[in-house]
């Protein structure tokens, strides 16, 4: 049973490790079991990346460190575990990137979502098209719409207050980030520029995402 949490995929350059769940101890247990089944084969393997829908950066780093020091894995990008945290902190401090959710897994939706259609995903959702009224998007992470967002968008489901919703035209019926629900003010306000919605001090703030516009 526990083995199903882990899958190891080998390609020419090395191996990917796909992880399910977000409980480090369980992941560690089943990962070590899997490696010990074939210890000679894995020793010194080249690790390309660790991926997983619910994987946090902390767990990812832990897994990488475990593999590096206990099983002699060679990490393809050493900086992944060493510099990443620092790099991220720096960028946020210097305001170079908005304080958004760590990238993670992303679902791409091609075409227009119509009334009654719903997309739910344990990660980010990117819609290449419009989201019409009556359509619903639910994401654990961010929601990006390359078009008009007129339906309901719920980002950051399950406590992710850093999640954002952005669209070329942000005109949602209702917008939710984590457990905060807002609706647009009465009256038609149609902005011709792209906007981004995020939580700042427990309020959803909507602003242009190109500061110069």
């Amino acid at each position, binding site marked *: 049973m526990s083995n199903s949490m882990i899958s190891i995929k080998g390609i020419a350059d090395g191996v990917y490790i796909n992880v399910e769940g977000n409980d480090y101890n369980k992941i560690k247990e089943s990962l070590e079991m899997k490696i010990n089944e074939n210890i000679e084969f894995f020793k010194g393997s080249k690790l390309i990346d660790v991926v997983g829908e619910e994987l946090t950066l902390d767990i990812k780093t832990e897994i990488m460190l475990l593999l590096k020091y206990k099983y002699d894995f060679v990490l393809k990008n050493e900086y992944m575990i060493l510099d990443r945290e620092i790099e991220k902190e720096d960028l946020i401090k210097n305001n170079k990137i908005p304080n958004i959710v760590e990238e993670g897994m992303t679902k791409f939706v091609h075409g*227009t*979502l*119509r*009334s*009654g*259609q719903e997309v739910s995903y344990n990660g980010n959702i990117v819609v290449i098209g*419009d989201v*019409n*009224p*009556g359509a619903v998007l639910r994401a654990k992470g961010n929601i990006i719409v390359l078009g008009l967002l*007129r339906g309901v968008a719920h980002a950051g489901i399950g406590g992710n207050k850093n999640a954002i919703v952005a669209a070329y035209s942000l005109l949602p019926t209702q917008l939710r980030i984590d457990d905060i629900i807002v609706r647009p003010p009465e009256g038609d306000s149609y902005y011709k520029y792209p906007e981004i919605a995020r939580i700042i001090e427990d309020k959803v703030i909507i602003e242009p995402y190109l500061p110069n516009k």
Partner: protein
Amino acid sequence: MENEKKGTSIVVTSGKGGVGKTTTSANIGTGLAMLGYSVVVLDADIGLRNLDVVMGLENRIVYDIVDVVEKNCKLKQALIKDKRHENLYLLPAAQTKDKTAVSSSQMVELVNELKENYDYIIIDSPAGIEQGFQYSIAGADEAIIVTTPEVSAVRDADRVIGILEANEIYQPKLIVNRIRQDMVKRGDMMNIEDILDILAVKLLGVVPDDENVVISTNRGEPVIMDEKALSGKAYRNIVRRIIGEEVDFLNLENTNQGKLSKMMKILFGR
């Protein structure tokens, strides 16, 4: 299999009720027949049949679609020939049954049989998105969406377009029914651009709100036969677009204005 088929089946649907599906089906069917095509209009609204009334054929019904599906009669026996057009037939719905009387696979079989003998099969779908709608679209090659310039009707149309796509009927065409140009001008009614902006489908035609439609419907004579009515002209243009002609969209500017402007139009040629 695909090559044997001769005709094209088109479902007329909307999601919302009362937007003019049946009127549109009757007019398109009649219009195609007027151009010389052999046409069957199929009333799929079992239990709430109307198409026979709109076409003035109610008193000729002997067998209906359920009789055909249950093999109580031959398909040919159930088809009612139109009063005015040789090559136009109605396959009426049953009034005493309900939507469970026909399944999607029976419908596909029936429509395929019709396609072998007729150029166009126009399927008048019931309102809603339940079983009646599901079997109506099952046999359709193409779809025509009817909507009115109301937010609720457009919303339902959007829903239906999504379901059609899920059932592999792509690129439905849109008819906007009952538009009132004077209200659009005042900003009190959605305009065509607003509607197309949301639905993002190809526009097949715009039919003005016209009392002639009510008159002709009650008389059982589709308005498309009325040479003078603007709505009749709109339907004739729609039919020409269905057979692939390029036709300019009607100028609806003067529909609800006074006699004076109509006079001016006649005198000075618009």
